[in-house]
């Protein structure tokens, strides 16, 4: 038996190399200085009073770096379209699964649905006052639909309403951006009144809560579509096996 087989030389060399890499990377990262310059975030914190938003992260996400959020919403939209393109088949016939629905599960999930949707709406509407916002609240609303699907896989979502919500909210977001150009000569500018004295109130911050509501509707309907495709995918397989 050769030495090569008794000693896994390749593995030893590889692990030595990778640990050397890791150690040198650690040594480098230890030298990272965080206070070389005043960061743009500190400047935003100073400016944040002007936007009359209690939550500085929200004002950065929706206002100071607003076009990032337009792009992010677009990424989610594209992912939804991609999932729909992949998982929709031409002969998609939902033969109903013959399965005894549990009464308690059905009623319980419907009861919980309203509570979860209310909670999601709360997170969206209070995005500029407390942690949370359009993305988080939208996903919470989508998980309510996930619960419904788990309780009753035969359920169908009303696709025309979801598509309407998605298209309208997306277009509304772009329109808000363009109205800013005409009103305050800046794309995505804050054209609604936002007096500083109102800070901490529900209606404050100008367009910031408006944008988060739009984002919430869009993310909620998109995530519901994604969840539906993944649940129905499974459903279809079960029919084939039966």
């Amino acid at each position: 038996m050769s030495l090569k087989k008794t000693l896994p030389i390749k593995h030893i060399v590889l692990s030595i190399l990778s640990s050397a890499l890791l150690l040198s990377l650690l040594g480098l990262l230890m030298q990272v200085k965080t206070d070389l310059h005043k960061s743009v975030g500190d400047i935003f914190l100073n400016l944040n009073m002007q936007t009359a938003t209690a939550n500085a992260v929200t004002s950065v996400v929706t206002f100071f770096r607003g076009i990032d959020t337009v792009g992010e919403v677009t990424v989610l939209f594209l992912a939804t379209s991609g999932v729909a393109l992949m998982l929709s088949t031409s002969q998609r016939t939902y033969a109903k699964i013959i399965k005894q629905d549990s009464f308690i599960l059905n009623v319980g999930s419907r009861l919980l649905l309203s509570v979860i949707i209310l909670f999601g709406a709360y997170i969206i509407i209070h995005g500029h006052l407390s942690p949370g916002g359009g993305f988080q609240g939208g996903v919470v609303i989508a998980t309510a639909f996930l619960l419904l699907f788990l309780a009753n896989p035969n359920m169908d979502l009303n696709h025309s309403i979801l598509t309407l919500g998605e298209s309208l909210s997306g277009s509304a977001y772009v329109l808000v951006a363009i109205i800013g150009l005409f009103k305050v000569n800046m794309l995505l500018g804050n054209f609604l009144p936002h007096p500083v004295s109102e800070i901490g109130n529900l209606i404050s911050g100008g367009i910031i809560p408006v944008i988060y509501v739009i984002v919430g509707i869009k993310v909620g309907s998109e995530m519901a579509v994604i969840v539906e495709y993944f649940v129905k995918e499974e459903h279809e397989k079960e029919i084939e096996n039966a």
Partner: protein
Amino acid sequence: MIGLLILFTFLSIIIVALGAILSKDITQSVMLFMGVGLGSVVLFFIFQAPDVALTEAVIGTGLSTAVFLLGIRHTSQEEVES
């Protein structure tokens, strides 16, 4: 105290992540990955980033795991198929 808390959370995340990578069972690996997300949520709260913590809890841990579990339901459960 806070330093020790961070240290222990990190250690548990690392152990859970190793388990997620090394596990032979896909479902187990996804569930352990959820543990990584939960640990991150705790750390984000400690680091005074409640927005990120909420996002990670809802999106990174909640919906991601749900999508994973729904997705792998009918693909192979074992890591290596015969």
